[in-house]
């Protein structure tokens, strides 16, 4: 294969359908299928599902989970887990809110918020690499510290500062018909999808998770890979937290509570294996979309809201089972 060749035959191999299919490999296909089936089902029952307003609203409401799942996938692929994403999201939003309350300009407030994510992510990474703590324990610790800090600082009362319109646009604005958080989600998803699939760093992430010993012996600095990945997860959670605060303009101490389960579910539905080495950003986005659409469908179809979690759980099990079944067939 000649390096740097741009002969016509090579370009024709990159036809659009092949690229699209290549982007969505087998494991994501079953999630996409589930997504389309659920959507079709909802659309058949209610005419309000397939409207621009509703779809954009749904995309915006699952965008936070989807944004955080980008970081989570990378962590899971290295064989780890990050339970602290919810607390980091909440705390970043809170710090941003407090900065506004103290009169700092928008850029400074956002920087403080991002800084919180960066620090927590880095801490997680150091605990896992230098501290040699199991990721579950390490991030459980930072989850509790983060949540505790939020309650200490707010004393249970939400922080609701005045914020300039420029900042509010992050969470409430639109680019044309598309809500700003959805744009942010797409940008992050595309960027990290490309990084994971086409860069050396991405390959190192998969290698670290696939077989850490082998990767290390092949010259991959697995510790540094993990450090970077946890820090990124923290920073990305902070982005979600800032977007969330910009949307609701109220930093509640319970913000983000429990969302780590939704984020992990999104990554796993999208094909990530909790033992590492497998997973994709595209899949995680689809996973987040699936649970988000179910939540929307439940209200549109007037299904008992108590049933929502049960339905979501059932759909998750079905989607993942299809994938496991296909793998089993391939190996036969």
């Amino acid at each position, binding site marked *: 294969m000649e390096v740097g060749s741009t002969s016509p035959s090579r370009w024709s191999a990159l036809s659009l359908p092949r690229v699209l299919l290549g982007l969505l490999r087998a494991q994501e296909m079953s999630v996409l299928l589930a997504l389309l089936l659920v959507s079709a089902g909802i659309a058949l029952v209610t005419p309000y599902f397939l409207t621009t307003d509703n779809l954009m609203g749904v995309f915006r409401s699952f965008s936070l989970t989807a944004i955080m799942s980008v970081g989570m996938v990378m962590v899971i692929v290295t064989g780890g887990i990050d339970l602290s994403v919810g607390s980091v999201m909440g705390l970043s939003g809170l710090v941003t809110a407090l900065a506004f309350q103290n009169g700092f300009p928008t850029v400074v407030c956002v920087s403080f918020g991002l800084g919180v994510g960066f620090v927590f992510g880095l801490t997680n990474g150091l605990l896992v690499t230098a501290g040699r703590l199991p990721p579950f324990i390490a991030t459980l610790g930072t989850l509790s510290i983060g949540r505790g800090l939020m309650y200490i600082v707010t004393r249970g009362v*939400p922080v609701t500062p005045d914020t300039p319109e420029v900042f509010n646009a992050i969470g409430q604005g639109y680019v044309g018909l598309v809500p700003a958080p959805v744009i942010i989600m797409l940008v992050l998803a595309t960027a990290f999808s490309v990084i994971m699939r086409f860069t050396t760093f991405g390959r190192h992430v998969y290698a670290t998770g696939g077989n850490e010993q082998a990767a290390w012996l092949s010259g991959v600095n697995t510790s540094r890979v993990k450090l970077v990945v946890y820090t990124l997860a923290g920073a990305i959670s902070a982005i979600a937290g800032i977007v969330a605060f910009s949307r609701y303009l109220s930093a509640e101490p319970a913000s983000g509570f429990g969302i780590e389960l939704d984020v992990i579910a999104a990554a796993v539905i999208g094909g990530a294996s909790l033992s590492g080495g497998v997973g994709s950003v595209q899949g995680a986005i689809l996973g987040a979309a699936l649970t988000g659409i179910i939540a929307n469908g439940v209200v549109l179809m007037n299904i008992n809201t108590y049933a929502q979690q049960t339905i979501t759980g059932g759909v998750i099990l079905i989607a993942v089972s299809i994938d496991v079944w296909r793998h089993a067939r391939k190996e036969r």
Partner: protein
Amino acid sequence: MKKLLSLFQASLMALPLSLAVQMNATAKDLKDIKIAVIPKVAVPFFDDCNNGAKAEADKLGVQYQWVVPQNTQGSTQVRILEDLISKKVDGIAISVNEPKSVEAAIKKAMASGIKVLTFDSDSPNSGRSMYIGTINSAAGETMGESMAKAIGGEGEVAIITGQLGAVNLNERIDGIKKSLAKYPKIKIVATEGTEDDLAKAVSVTETIFRGHPALKGIFGVSQVGGPAVSKVMATKEFGAKKGAVKVFAFDDLPDTIKGVKEGYIQGIMVQRPVTMGKLSVEHLVDQITGKEKSPKNVDTGVNVVNSQNLDSYTK
């Protein structure tokens, strides 16, 4: 021939079109009106609201949907509001968890023609048409006065509330503080939040008892206070507190009523959730059909219930 056929087809199409125009000209049929009611979270107080609202909806013949948030975060109710806007309901009644976060969604709903009112817990700056519920500050003041009388005008008291950010609960606390200001010998030594979670409330109550052994009174400002304090006082460790610590609670959950019967609780402020539900649906429908043009807040009031009038109050 072809021309005649197409003319015929065109006139056939015109028929349903003209019918549709005629239908739009008349007011919306009651059975086509969609009302959605959103409580704070799944706790028994709102079951009464649901009963009242559903009964009224059935009576009027409108469509009714009860949507329960899975947690008390503001973002959850925002998502529900947006889904209901997509669904083009005609009226929404909501008991608000976090007043600021729902403002934008409520404004959006009203801008798209949906009538929105709040019940039980308000979002005062959201532009909603009206608030139906307890005038919480007055209820708080009554509670404070009752406690002051019960403990003889002096001593340490504690307040147990639900979500620390809830407007209605904080108004009750303000009312309590206002009435207790007249009694300088009464000191509020603790105000604790519980997210209206029973397990948390039990734990908080025990901690308060241990931290303030001389405590003479407890205010249960949200519906979780009554059951929690009753359960704690029924244990061996705190059995002596029964009767020695005066308890005033809110809302007549079965456990709270039992608490009054068994002497753990001295008085309950009972709201009228069934009435709140009923009036919410009634006023929404009136606003949708144009009957009510200038809505005003409605005070559904409280009953002070103690062992004497336990069997004779209405909700």
